[in-house]
């Protein structure tokens, strides 16, 4: 295996824990707003690292671009989605934890 592939594997392995932490947050955090925070980490950082890592290993430009596109799409969706849900929750009167 080449150095680039090792690097890729390393990035994937670094990315995966974000998902497990995201689930821990989803289960343990006290309200919607904090859970949104936990979710966004998995979506953005975890998926980003996995996509980059797999892209490094794929060795084909088209595949790498596709993986990057997946990450960007997920970023857009999760950024807007998190904002919309938080806004809606506030306007529906879901009280943030500790207030």
């Amino acid at each position, binding site marked *: 295996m080449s150095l680039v592939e090792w690097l890729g*594997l390393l990035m994937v392995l670094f990315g995966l824990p974000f998902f497990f932490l995201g689930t821990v947050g989803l289960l343990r955090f006290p309200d919607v707003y904090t859970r949104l925070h936990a979710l966004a980490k998995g979506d953005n950082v975890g998926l980003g690292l996995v996509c980059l890592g797999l892209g490094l290993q794929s060795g084909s430009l088209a595949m790498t671009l596709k993986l990057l596109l997946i990450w960007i*799409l997920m970023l*857009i969706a999760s950024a*807007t*989605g998190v904002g*919309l849900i938080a806004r809606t*929750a506030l306007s529906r*009167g879901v009280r943030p934890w500790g207030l």
Partner: protein
Amino acid sequence: MFEIYVIASLLLMVNILVGLARVLKGPTAADRMLAAEMFATSAVVILLLLATVSGEESLVDVALVFALLSAVTVVTFVSRFWIAGDSGKDRRAGGDS
């Protein structure tokens, strides 16, 4: 290396299984929706890992479609079902809508 990816996808499945607790518990609809979004991301990663393991390129297309359409579900959720200003329902964060 591929064994690691298979183990990783297996762990992600366990992750989904554990996360289902949030779908069960709620309490608000948004919590359940969030968990579903989380699973969508996990499924994308599982698909990407399996694509690498099997060398089947079309699995990346499936992941691409999931990534593209994950926005549709959330936006429908907040504009058709869990609508803003429909207050009083979630005041104590216990009443499910």
